[in-house]
C-alpha cells in the first residue's frame, strides 16, 4: 500500500538531492524504509546509525512507523558547536 510522504533534506543531503524537499508516493512502513527509498537520490553511504530522522517534527528511531501524509526529515550526521 503506497503512501504520500513529504521528505525534507538537510545540509549534505539537501545539496546532494538538489532540493529541500519532495513529495513521494512510496511503499514504506517505517522511517528506515523512507531512507532506503531515497538513499540513491541523496547519494550517501553514511550508515544509518550516524544519521537522525524526525517524523512530523519529532525525533524518532528508524523503526518508527510512517503514515500517509507524514513529513519525514532526514538529517545527515550532525555537528553543532
Amino acid at each position: 500500500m503506497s503512501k504520500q510522504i513529504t521528505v525534507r533534506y538537510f545540509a549534505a543531503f539537501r545539496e546532494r538531492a538538489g532540493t529541500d524537499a519532495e513529495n513521494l508516493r512510496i511503499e514504506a512502513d517505517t522511517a528506515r524504509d523512507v531512507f532506503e527509498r531515497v538513499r540513491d537520490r541523496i547519494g550517501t553511504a553514511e550508515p544509518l546509525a550516524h544519521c537522525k530522522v524526525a517524523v512530523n517534527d519529532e525525533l524518532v528511531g528508524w523503526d518508527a512507523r510512517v503514515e500517509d501524509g507524514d513529513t519525514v526529515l532526514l538529517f545527515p550526521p550532525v555537528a553543532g558547536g
Partner: protein
Amino acid sequence: MMRVTRQAIRPDLLRAELFDPAAGAYAAFEGWVRNENEGHEVLRLEYEAYEPLAVKEGEKIIAEARARWPVRHAACVHRHGLLEIGECAVWVGVSAAHRDAAFHACRYIIDQVKIRLPIWKKEHYADGNSGWVSCERCAAHGGTR
C-alpha cells in the same frame, strides 16, 4: 532557555539573564570559530540549523542538566548562518549555588548540544574547497571544539 538564531551572540547580555542572589557560581562555555581543522586552513564556517527541532532538543538537554545538578539557571544559544574566524557559534551559561554543579551542568549541556542538535557546519578552506563536517570526525574532535 534554548535559542537558535542568526544574530550575533552577546555573552555579556546573556550572562545577566542568569543573575540570582542565591547563585554563588557561574560557569560558561563558548565555541569560537577557529582558523584550522585537521591541518586545513579554515576561512569561515557556515552553520545550517533546523530551528524548531534544535530548540526542542536543546530545551530537553537543559532540562536533563537541571534534573541532574542543583542549578539556579541554565541557558544555551546556538548561532547559524555564515560565521567568521573568532565569532561565537555557541554559548552555554549556568548559575548555581555551588561551582561543582555549575561546571558539570555546563559541560553536560555543550557535550550533548554538539551531538544531538540538528545543526550542521560546512568549512570553507583557504584552498577554495569546502566540506561538511561529519559526525565521525566530530565525535573524535569537536567542531568549534
